[in-house]
Each structure stands twice: as structure tokens, then as C-alpha cells.
């Protein structure tokens, strides 16, 4: 079980949070910390890249929803990059596909933030 979190600036005031591995009840606090830190620093436009995520459950979804709520309070947005059909399916089932912008690549997700 592992999770990799890589945060980088992507031009403008947008930041990319690149995640890899498995996001579950054990690893999601690490993801939450990374997103919370960015928001606390005043970064409200985020791209969260899930391309290398092999597994996500409701706790991972909860972290993403929590981040979205907070950035929206400041007029910001969270867009996701997701190409894994199994993970995409979870967003479809839960209806979150209508709440997050979900894109096939980072460029598309970043452009949509603007």
C-alpha cells in the first residue's frame, strides 16, 4: 500500500497535485494534508492528477470533495485528470462526474481552470 503526492506550480496561480498509488482510509490523510496546505497558502485553482492512482475509495472521494468545497468558498475550482476507467466509473456511480471537471490530460484540466 502506497501513496505518492507531488505538488507543483503549473503557471498562473494554478497548482497541480499529482497523486500515485492507492487512496484509501489509511493514505487519504496524506492527500488531504497536501491539498489543505495549498489552500491555506491561498492557492484556490487546483488540478488533481489521478492518472497514476490505481485505487480510490469513498475516503479519497471525501478528501477531493472537501478540497472542492474550500476552494469554491474563495471562487476557485478543482479539476481532475483521470484516465483509469475503473476510477472514472466510481465518479460516474457517485454522481461526482457532474461536480468535478474531469479531463483526460493535465493541459485540458489547466485550460478549463482559466
Amino acid at each position, binding site marked *: 500500500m502506497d501513496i505518492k503526492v507531488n505538488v507543483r506550480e503549473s503557471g498562473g496561480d494554478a497548482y497541480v497535485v499529482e497523486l500515485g498509488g492507492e487512496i*484509501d*482510509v*489509511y493514505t487519504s490523510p496524506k492527500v488531504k494534508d497536501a491539498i489543505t496546505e495549498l489552500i491555506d497558502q491561498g492557492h484556490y485553482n487546483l488540478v488533481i492528477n489521478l492518472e497514476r492512482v490505481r485505487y480510490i*475509495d*469513498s*475516503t479519497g472521494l471525501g478528501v477531493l*470533495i472537501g478540497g472542492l468545497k474550500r476552494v469554491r468558498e474563495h471562487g476557485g475550482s478543482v479539476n481532475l485528470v483521470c484516465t483509469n476507467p475503473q476510477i472514472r466509473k466510481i465518479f460516474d456511480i*457517485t454522481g461526482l462526474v457532474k*461536480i468535478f471537471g474531469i479531463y483526460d490530460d493535465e493541459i485540458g484540466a489547466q485550460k478549463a481552470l482559466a
Partner: protein
Amino acid sequence: MSELEASLPTSPLGTEHRRGSELEASLPTSPLGTEHRRGNATQVANAHLGTVELRIPSKPEWVAVARLTIAAIANRLPFSVEEIEDLKLAIAEACTNVIQSESGADSIEIVVETGSAELKIHVRDHGAIRIRQAVAAPLGGVPVEGGLGVFLIQALMDSVEQSANPESGNQLVMTKRVGS
């Protein structure tokens, strides 16, 4: 008559039984016998592979063990890769519900009844009595952060039942059939 009975060492049935035991004991490495027993076991396994029980501590770091276990069991049935992913998510959600309920449960019991074409999974704990309701993400608005777990289980499995009482504790029973 009574003397005759008294002189018999055992009843015929008892003797037969003992002979059988002796016979088995004397042929521990008979290839035919071993093959025969294996054959019977295989026939039973085709109908019902058996029951697997796992108990994990009610802590986040152990949920991955439940996921890996259910994947290993599901691999013995003709489930698709996608169905196995569904099972992994469902078992993780059930365990996560127990952990996040903070009900005081020390451990989570997982019992998997393995049929030839379905898995029936029991997830039990003996924490405070509760039944978690499914909460779907409302369309158009930002959903609550918790409560999606049971909703996901219901979406991914063929049947889900929850029960709770002070004697047997909290139990969630979910079934998934191959190809469903």
C-alpha cells in the same frame, strides 16, 4: 448368552469401525487412496469452494489486507478484472465504515462464503450498534464528505443487507455473482 456377549471384545460395528481406522492408518501413502480423496475434495470444491475467515484490527492500515484477501479469493472464481475491483472497493468500504464509526470495535470479522459463481461476504464488528444509511452525491451541489461508502457498496454488489443487535453485533452481508 451373557457370557458370550461378555467374551466378545467389541460389537461388530465397533470392530468394523476400528478396522477401517487401522486400514487407513496402514495406508498413509497409498497413491490410489490419496487420489480418491483428492477427487472427492475437488468435486465438493466445484460446488462450494469453502469459507474463508479473516479478522483484522479495526484500524486504517489493515484495510488493504482485506482488499488483497478478497482479490485473492475472487481470483479463484471466473470474475472479471472489473468485478474483482468492485469487490475490493466494496470490502474496503465496509471495513472503513466500521473504522470511521468510532464505535469502539477492536476488530473486524470478515467471512467469505465462496460458491462456484458468487461470493457472499459477511463483515461483522462488535462495536456500538448502528446501521449506516447510504448517502448519494446530490446532483448539482457539493455532496457531503462522508456516507458514500454504503452507497458505493449498494451500487457495486448484487445484494446488501445490514443488521444490528446487541448479541451478534453489527453485520453487513453483501453478495456478488460472477458476470452480474
